[in-house]
C-alpha cells in the first residue's frame, strides 16, 4: 500500500518536474553540445546566462515585466479590494450584474480585444507604452482580485465589524484596523495571482508593443534571433526562460498553501 502510493507520488512528481529540468539543463549546455539531445548537460557552462544579461533588450524586457506587473497588480488590488469589500458586505442594486460582468471578463477571449485595442491605442498614443499594457492587465486582473478577495472577505465574520463599530471605530477604522489585518493573507495571495497573470501574459505583450520600450520579457524572448550571440538562439532562449520562470516558481512553492486557497476561492460558489 505504502509502496504503491510512493510509486504514484514519484510519477506525479516526474510529470511535473521533468519538463522543467529539461529546460534548465538546456540552459546550462555549452553551445557545442546543445544539439546532443541528452537530458542532462554533458558540458556545463554559464555562458548562456552571461549572454542574455549582456543583452539590453532582455534586461529592458525584465524591467518592463517587473514594472508593468507591479503597477498593474497594485492598481488592480486597490480597486479590486474596494469592489470586493462592497460585494462581500454591502447591499446594493446591481451587485449580481457586477459579479456577472467580471465573470464575463474573466472568461473573455483576449484576442477579441487585441484588434480593437491595437487600433484604439495607436490613435490615443498608448501603443507601445507601459500604460498601453497596464490598462488591459488591470482589466483582466480585476475579475480575479474581485472574486478571490470577496471570497476572503466573506470568510471574516461580519460581527467583528459590528463589534468594532460598538467599540467606537469609524467605518474606515473598522475596515483598516480589523478587516485588513485579517485579510492580509488573502490579499497577499490575490496579489501573487494577479502578478503571475500579468507576468505570464504573452498575447497583449506581442500585439500592443513594437519596440523594447514596453515589450515584456516573455515577448522579448520570442524575438531572440541569436544573431547577436550565437547562430542558434536555443541556449539563450532556454536561459531566459529559466530566468523569467524560476523566481515565480519559487514564489509559488513558497506560498503554495495560500495560492491553492486563492486559486480555488473564486471557483467554489461563494
Amino acid at each position, binding site marked *: 500500500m505504502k509502496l504503491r502510493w510512493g510509486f504514484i507520488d514519484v510519477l506525479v512528481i516526474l510529470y511535473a518536474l521533468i519538463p522543467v529540468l529539461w529546460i534548465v539543463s538546456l540552459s546550462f549546455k555549452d553551445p557545442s553540445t546543445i544539439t546532443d539531445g541528452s537530458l542532462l548537460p554533458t558540458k556545463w557552462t554559464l555562458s548562456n546566462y552571461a549572454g542574455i544579461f549582456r543583452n539590453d533588450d532582455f534586461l529592458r524586457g525584465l524591467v518592463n515585466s517587473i514594472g508593468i506587473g507591479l503597477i498593474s497588480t497594485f492598481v488592480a488590488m486597490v480597486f479590486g479590494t474596494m469592489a470586493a469589500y462592497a460585494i462581500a458586505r454591502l*447591499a446594493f442594486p446591481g451587485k449580481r450584474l457586477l459579479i456577472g460582468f467580471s465573470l464575463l471578463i474573466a472568461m473573455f477571449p483576449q484576442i477579441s480585444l487585441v484588434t480593437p485595442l491595437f487600433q484604439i491605442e495607436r490613435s490615443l498614443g498608448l501603443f507601445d507604452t507601459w500604460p498601453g499594457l497596464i490598462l488591459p492587465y488591470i482589466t483582466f486582473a480585476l475579475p480575479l482580485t474581485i472574486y478571490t478577495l470577496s471570497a476572503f472577505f466573506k470568510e471574516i*465574520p461580519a*460581527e*467583528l465589524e*459590528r*463589534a*468594532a*463599530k*460598538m*467599540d*467606537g*471605530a*469609524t467605518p474606515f*477604522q473598522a475596515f483598516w*484596523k*480589523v478587516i485588513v*489585518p*485579517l485579510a492580509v493573507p488573502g490579499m497577499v495571495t490575490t496579489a501573487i495571482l494577479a502578478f503571475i497573470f500579468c507576468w505570464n501574459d504573452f498575447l497583449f505583450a506581442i500585439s500592443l508593443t513594437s519596440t523594447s520600450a514596453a515589450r515584456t520579457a516573455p515577448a522579448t524572448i520570442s524575438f531572440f534571433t541569436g544573431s547577436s550571440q550565437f547562430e542558434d538562439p536555443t541556449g539563450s532562449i532556454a536561459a531566459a526562460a529559466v530566468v523569467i520562470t524560476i523566481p515565480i516558481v519559487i514564489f509559488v512553492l513558497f506560498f503554495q498553501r495560500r495560492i491553492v486557497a486563492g486559486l480555488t476561492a473564486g471557483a467554489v460558489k461563494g
Partner: protein
Amino acid sequence: MAEIVLDGVSKRYPDGTTAVHDINLTIADREFVILVGPSGCGKSTTLNMIAGLEEISSGELRIDGERVNERAPRDRDIAMVFQSYALYPHMTVRENMAFPLTLAKLPKPEVAAKVGHAAQLLDLTALLDRKPANLSGGQRQRVAMGRAIVRDPKAFLMDEPLSNLDAKLRVQMRTSIARLQKRLGTTTVYVTHDQTEAMTLGDRIVIMYSGVVQQVGPPEELYDRPANLFVAGFIGSPSMNLLPAQVRDDGLHTIIGVIPHRSRGLPPEVVAGIRPEAFQDTRIRGGASFTDTVDILESMGAEKIAYFTFETGETGESGGTAFGDGAQVVARLDPKSRAREGEPATLWYDPAAVHIFDPDSGVNLTA
C-alpha cells in the same frame, strides 16, 4: 449610567419584513432588563437598534432624554457583547480590551490601568498576552465582557452572550454576570431565548413574540399573572397546561373534569391554564381533583414529572399517535410522590390557581 427609552420604535427591513412593531419601553438607570422570546421574534433587531447597528424605521430612541436615532454606534457610548464574542483574532487579550480605549485616544498609562483593572475583575490577568484562538469558550466570553466594561459605557447590550457555553459554565457565568452588573450598576439590556436565564437574571423581563411586546414586568409577575396565552406558555418549565374548556353553570368542563369556577361574565368557550406545579397527589382542602393513568413518569431527583394522556372526543377520528394527539397534562410532583408509571393516580389542585384565557384574543381573563 443612563436611562434608555424606546418610544414607539419599529423596524421594517427593506424586504418588507416587520421585525419589530411599535415597542414602548423605558429602561431605568442601573436596571437589568431581559429581552426574551422565541427565535426570530425580533430580540436581536431591537438590541441592534439600541446599539445603532440597525437603523430605526420609525419611533424614537432616547438615551438620557436625548434623541439618538441618527447617532452612529460610536457616538452612543454603549458597549455590546456578541453571541460569537466577536473577539479580534489578530489581537491579544490585552489589545482586544484596550481597543475601545485606544480608539478613544486615551493616554497609554490610563489604558493600561483600565485594562488591568478590568482583567482583575474578570480574572483574566494571567491571559492578557494570549490570542483569542488559545482561549477556552468561557475565557473568550470573559474577554468579551472585559472589552465591554473597560470603557465604563452608559449601557451594556448583550445578545445571547452565554449561548455558546456548555450548560454548567452557563449557570456559572450567569451568576457572575448578575454580580458584575450589580457591582457596576450599569444599565443592561440582555437578550436570550432561554427562559431560565430570563427568570434568574433580570430586574424586569420583556417578552416578545413576532415583533410585538407581549408583557413587561418582574419575573414573578410574569409567572403569576401572565398577560396572555403566549406568556403563559412561554414562562415556566414544564410549561403551563392549557386546556380547552366549555363554560357551564357548574364550572369549566375540560378533559380533566369540571373545574369549579364562577361562570358569570365568561365567554362560552375559554382556555383553562394550570401550571404543572399546581398539582399534588395529596388532598387539598377545598380543591378539585382528577384521576387518570400515569403515562410516563420522569424522576428528576428533586421532583417527579408525570404525564397523562387523555383521548379527546372531538379529535378522535384523526387518531392518536405515539406523540399523542390526545391532550396531554403534565404535573410536577414531589419526589416522595407515590405515583407509578402505568398505574392510576389522583391529583389535586386549587381551582383558584387556574388561569382563564379568552381563546380568540388570548387575553388572561383572571389576571
